[in-house]
């Protein structure tokens, strides 16, 4: 079985919850672990950016932005025309699926490092870049005569939400500090996989505890939450081919395309689209897409790409 050890912790949390024996974590630990992961990934990417950064990153980032904007444009008509969801709900969910999940990215990183597959070390830059365009496109898609935005507050949430701020901030700190960042690595580097395992244990519990909501929202949303990652993965693979990145980078871009946000986008959408059903988007991204990617998607994308490209 191609399941990574960190993903096994996700399964453990999920099974414990299904058996109605949830593993209780201290309140606030989930938030603390999220902050740790964002800083660790950002810092590592920043150090690499200082070492390997070049002008090519500019056009590569531009392609990644276009890719991020394309995903919600594909998701929106499926939700609106086929699912019959309201314009606001369709736009909100589409924005979640255009953005990325830092935890899914972390699992993909763990898999690559466990298999010793090289990837572009500045990849966290693309993760930070991918967080933003989907939110903007989602807001454009939701725009109607009756829908008005609080522009200042919305822009604040798009660019300064916790996910973007911590990731981009740590990236800059790592880039600026260079070798000095090594002082922090015993904490943010060596402990990374242990913290990720703890985080996934809690994620297993959280996502399984929301399973009942799927009954309420219907089977369409579950089907969408499985088919959209596959579409995103194919486009992510295509984007990686355009960028001309390594095999590991291709696996990461495919995983990013398949992932859906449940941290940055919900926060932005709660402010920008208060009428949107937040439960619907989070249930789709957290309860279906995240487990699908961790347990099914990442092993498949990794094996498939390794077989195809090597």
């Amino acid at each position, binding site marked *: 079985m191609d399941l990574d050890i960190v993903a096994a912790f996700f399964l453990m949390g999920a099974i414990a919850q299904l058996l109605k024996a949830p593993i209780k974590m201290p309140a606030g630990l989930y938030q603390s672990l999220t902050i740790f992961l964002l800083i660790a990934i950002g810092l590592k990417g920043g150090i690499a950016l200082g070492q390997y950064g070049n002008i090519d990153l500019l056009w590569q980032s531009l392609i990644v932005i276009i890719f991020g904007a394309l995903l919600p444009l594909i998701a929106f008509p499926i939700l609106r025309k086929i699912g019959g969801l309201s314009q606001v709900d369709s736009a909100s969910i589409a924005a979640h699926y255009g953005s990325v999940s830092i935890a899914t990215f972390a699992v993909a990183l763990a898999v690559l490092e466990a298999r010793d597959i090289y990837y572009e070390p500045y990849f966290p830059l693309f993760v930070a870049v991918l967080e933003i365009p989907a939110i903007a496109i989602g807001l454009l898609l939701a725009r109607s005569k009756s829908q008005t935005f609080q522009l200042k507050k919305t822009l604040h949430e798009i660019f300064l939400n916790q996910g973007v701020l911590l990731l981009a901030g740590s990236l800059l700190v790592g880039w600026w500090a260079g070798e000095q960042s090594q002082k922090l690595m015993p904490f943010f580097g060596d402990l990374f996989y242990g913290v990720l395992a703890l985080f996934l244990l809690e994620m297993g519990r959280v996502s399984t505890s929301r399973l009942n909501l799927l009954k309420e929202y219907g089977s369409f949303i579950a089907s969408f939450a499985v088919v959209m990652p596959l579409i995103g993965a194919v486009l992510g693979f295509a984007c990686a081919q355009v960028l001309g990145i390594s095999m590991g980078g291709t696996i990461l871009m495919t995983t990013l395309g398949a992932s859906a946000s449940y941290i940055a986008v919900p926060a932005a959408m709660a402010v920008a689209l208060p009428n949107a059903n937040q439960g619907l988007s989070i249930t789709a991204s957290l309860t279906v897409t995240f487990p699908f990617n961790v347990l099914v998607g990442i092993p*498949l994308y990794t094996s498939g790409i390794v077989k195809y490209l090597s």
Partner: protein
Amino acid sequence: MTDLLLPFELATISLLAVLGSSVLLVGLPGWGLISTALILTCMTVGLRITSASQSALERMPLNAQRV
């Protein structure tokens, strides 16, 4: 408006099943896709049966429900 929900769900299930089988045939991990197809099938059928029995119960006259 035509109800596209069921065709979409069936198409998703078929895609997963076909993709999973094809992936298995070339020696890649496809059981996850096949399992997902099975879970979605159960959800699609199960939730429709539940919803149909609930609406049948709602249509039933109140005195018949008591019996």
